[in-house]
């Protein structure tokens, strides 16, 4: 019996070895080990947070596979390619990539709004990023939901006003947070309501504070019914609000000939920038008009002393399609990300390109590199450009998802140069600039 057992044991060990060798003979796919990379050297006065998504673009909570963020100190071409595999922070486990950003801080309602309103910052320790929560506060009376609110800064940046609508989209609620402590200073309901023909408020609207005369403009869209998203069935209104009392001083409808809808009606400016002030204090807002069942962008202006759009002004004439983001570069020039309606409107369509808008003569032209137009990109819900230090850093992922790369537009010279490259195989969503 002992002999039998010994032979059995030998056979057993032999088979275990065979099993293990079968497992080992085909070279196992190793868990990707992040390669060490040199510590980044600062070349700008700010830091840049780069967001990419896996499998598809991440904006509008489209991505269920994960969005990754890395912080870099420079976007110049001399930097090593930005790697994401096993590096950085996976944002979407807790947070949304749509966020309010000011100074070095992020402010947002996380994926789960039971976590209240959160203020956090990103710490960079060597090449390792981590999210550090500075403060979070529960909602008390008004509740807001992830991605579905708009904001503006009051009191010289000391107060953060957040505005959203309720789930039935019939009333707009607001809360003022202390920017430092997140203490709730005030909350209430705006005195606006849908009409008999347009029964539903857009999810967030757009709140803009005009410091010159201490007024809040709340642009909101009324839709014919819940779930309707096309501009033709919508009307845009402007409520002018006293920031101290939150009383509505004026509430007017914008004529459809001027603007049917805002560029973004649902998510404020948590990701995509849609308005700016120029040096004169005039306010520019991106919007949408429709023609032949297609949507085309408009850029309308409210003069410093007015509370209404100037119906004769549109900075974006002969638009190829809807405008997605717009940022002011100074000296009457804006940097815009626009769609070419003929090339497709799907979320993943490669139909978007960067253009420079001349706000005085109302002309626009494609951004060029080496004398040729930069190619079209995908990413309908993305904000891959940032204006900082006299330059515009913008991300490009050309047709067929080629190389993820940053380009740099020098505002003074108009020259475009390549910047840092990003790891391929990922969908490039956002570039953000934050204080160090």
């Amino acid at each position: 019996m002992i002999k039998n057992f010994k032979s059995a044991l030998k056979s057993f060990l032999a088979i275990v070895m065979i099993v293990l060798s079968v497992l080992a003979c085909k070279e196992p796919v190793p868990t990707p080990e992040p390669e060490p990379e040199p510590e980044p050297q600062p070349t700008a006065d700010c830091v840049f947070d780069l967001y990419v998504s896996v499998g598809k673009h991440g904006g509008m909570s489209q991505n269920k596979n994960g969005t990754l963020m890395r912080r870099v100190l420079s976007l110049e071409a001399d930097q090593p390619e930005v790697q994401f595999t096993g590096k950085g922070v996976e944002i979407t486990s807790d947070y949304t990539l749509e966020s309010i950003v000011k100074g070095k801080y992020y402010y947002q309602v996380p994926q789960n709004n039971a976590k209240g309103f959160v203020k956090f910052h990103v710490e960079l320790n060597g090449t390792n990023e981590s999210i550090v929560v500075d403060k979070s506060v529960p909602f008390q009376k008004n509740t807001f939901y992830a991605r579905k609110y708009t904001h503006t800064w009051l009191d010289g940046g000391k107060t953060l006003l957040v505005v959203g609508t309720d789930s039935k989209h019939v009333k707009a609620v607001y809360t003022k947070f202390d920017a430092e402590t997140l203490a709730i200073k005030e909350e209430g309901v705006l005195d606006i309501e849908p009409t008999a023909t347009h029964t539903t408020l857009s999810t967030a609207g757009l709140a803009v504070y005009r410091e010159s005369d201490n007024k809040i403009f709340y642009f909101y869209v009324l839709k014919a019914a819940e779930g309707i998203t096309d501009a033709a069935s919508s009307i845009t209104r402007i409520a002018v609000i006293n920031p101290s009392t939150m009383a509505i001083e004026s509430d007017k409808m914008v004529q459809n000939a001027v603007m049917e809808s805002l560029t973004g009606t649902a998510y404020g400016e948590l990701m995509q920038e849609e308005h700016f002030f120029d040096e004169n204090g005039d306010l520019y807002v991106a919007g949408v008009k429709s023609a032949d069942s297609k949507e085309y962008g408009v850029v309308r202006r409210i003069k410093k002393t007015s509370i209404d759009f100037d119906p004769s002004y549109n900075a974006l004439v002969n638009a190829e399609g809807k405008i997605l983001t717009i940022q002011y570069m100074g000296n009457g020039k804006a940097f815009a990300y626009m769609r070419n309606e003929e090339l497709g409107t799907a979320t993943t369509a490669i139909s978007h390109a960067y253009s420079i808008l001349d706000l005085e003569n109302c002309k626009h032209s494609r951004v060029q590199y080496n004398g040729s137009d930069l190619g079209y990109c995908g990413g309908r819900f993305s904000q891959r450009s940032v204006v900082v230090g006299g330059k515009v850093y913008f991300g490009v992922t050309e047709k067929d998802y080629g190389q993820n790369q940053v380009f740099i537009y020098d505002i003074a010279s108009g020259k475009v140069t390549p910047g840092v490259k990003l790891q391929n195989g990922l969908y490039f969503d956002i570039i953000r600039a934050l204080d160090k």
Partner: protein
Amino acid sequence: MRLFKYFTTVLLSLSLCVTLSAQNKVVLSGTVVDNSNQPVFAASVVVKSHSVGTYTDEKGFYKLELAPGKYVVEVSLMGYESQEVELSVKSATKKNFVLQENALFLESAKVVGKSKEMTLREGAYAVNAINVQAMVNTVNNLAHAIDRTTGIRVREEGGVGSDFDLSINGMSGNSIRYFIDGMPLDAKGSNVTLANIPVNTIDRVEVYKGVIPASFGTDALGGAINIVTKKAKRNYTDFSYGYGSFSTHKLSYTGQYGIGKTGFVIRPTFSADYSKNNYLMKGVTYISEDRSEFLTGDCRRFHDKFHSLYGRLELGFENRKWADEFFVSGSYSKIDKDIQTGATQEWVYGMVVRHSQSYNVDARYKKNNLFTEGLGLSVNASHTWDHSAMVDTTYRSYDWSGRYIEGTLSELSRNGGKSIRHYKRPLTMVRTNLSYDINANHSIALNYMLNRTGNQQYDTYNELFVPTNDMVMKHFVNMSYNQSFFAGKMNNAFFVKDYVNHLEVRQTEHSSTTGSQKVEAVSTKNYLGYGVGTRYTIVDPASVKLSYEHAVRLPSSRELLGNGSTVYANFQLKPEISENFNLGFFGTWDMGAGHQLSYEANGFVRLVQNYIKATVTEKEGMMQYQNVSAVNVKGVDGEIRYDWRGKLHFMANASFNDSRDNNRYTPEGMESITYGCRVPNKPWTFANAELSYTFHNVGLPSSRLRISYDYQYIHWFYLTWEAFGSASTKPRIPTQHISNVSLLYSWADGRYNISGECTNLFDALAYDNYKLQKPGRGFFLKFRLFL
């Protein structure tokens, strides 16, 4: 396919040689009964001094093919006196045996027989059999018993009655199919699961790893669990009541009553479970009473009550000329369950409730030697009316303190608003199995199964909801051929399976999430599977098994249609297809003097296309099943068991599986960032150990006192793909060490049993799916009466 052909050719050639060489033999056959004339199953019938032997079947029947001559035949089984007779076998010979029970076998008898579990393990498939009888007095949940088996992980979402997920060798829960006496468990209604089947009704549990016998007649990819209920030869009443922590009560009654020699048998079953599940959640975030700040601390679960009822009455005939078994049964089950969390514990609910109930009627017929010797027919037909309702009628936002504020979204449906959503899922199953024993060594079987599940949805609160009625119908046709050589030393099995999936989609809610608009409203698809398995005993305590299957697993109703609460439907799910390879080595060494050592080691490879994986949608705390286009699973597991005279028992097992994304490129042709990464949110290294000692005749005569300790180890694992973010920032489920102890005292030959169990002895933090916290230390007392 080439490998399958090669494997098949070799085995068929071998079978032909052996068949030809067997033609000059004569048959020795007969029955083995006990002293009350009841058939003895799994008795060993061995021809001494020859390597020839077999085991009796459930009728006590055995058959051996021998060359004409004189032989000494020994018949033995644990618990009976062995018998030896000298026989002269010149032509076909019948010899019956009557075994005498040996009450003292535990103390002194040499164990030569094999249990049903051991017999099963000697088939051609990779299978473990768990003898539940050893645990029935202490364990209050069948899932917990199975969780201690090598290669298996059961992951519960919380306390009593919570949903659970079971994996076998790295394949996740829905890759695993559940059967009760060979019939899919689904047929009993969605309320009947491993978590609430009365343990007292169960004889054993068979765990098939990777390759599933065609006789089950359905699709499975990772394995199957077959619960075998008691088939006692005599009348009995089995009653138990347990009470434990978190206000847990469990009542169970089952019995069997036969009427004389008519063959008429009645089997009633009833069980009721109740628990508040109000265990402490450690280190959770909650809101201060004035709602000014978030605090961190321990909070008791406040909305997790569970109440279930199950009743079944089975009646019919057995051991008649016209039927070995003919039974009809009706059952009713009802569950009321509070829902405490979403798919993660960050989502706290305070008012959501699920009510469900189901009725089932079932008929089964079985006859061996129908019309001619060796022809067997088994038919099951079952229909279940399954109705559940999810009540979600508040706009409240709760936190772990149990307090809430009014919000503007419903707890569960979020943007969907308030609702009382009803799901009616009528389920029809028909299963037939026709088998024919060509001779003692060769048999064939043909199996057909129909599975039709409806999915009617309507809402009695939200008037805007448009009722829908989806339907999934599956047909399975399987053929198998089994052969046995060298007096049972070698077994081979070959099978071919055909799957037809017919889907009708009507629902449009959350269409962008469920993909209902992107699939054909009505579609029918066909898939083919096949496989082969072999087992060879090299020397007595050492056998090797090898099996392969090209397996297809159609998405389950839960994966396709959701669960109505925390799981979204996904109509775009594709079937999983896998090449499954198993290599196993096992044996039992009887060392004498009452020492017995059993061991097994298995290696397995699963090459899976369209691997179905549960993914949490963080923004809503909802879950959805999605395909990962290619996943390779490789692994090993092993187990050692030691027993000394039925007193001292030790078991240890360890499992390692490596499931990795093998898809290099995305559909857009981009390099995939997750290529080569381990599939997240799945335990991949875990181990169990168990030590028990049984004292006999302590205090009362014919009594036993059993003390046992078991330990579980689970290595930490990531919640999301390891390529997403640096290791230090990633959420992970930490390494867990869980200890349980139990004490059992039974007297009057097991008629009266009282047990105490302490689970999670050291009150360790225990997590499961998506870091849902499980109960801390708990106590459970159980009294069982078996007459």
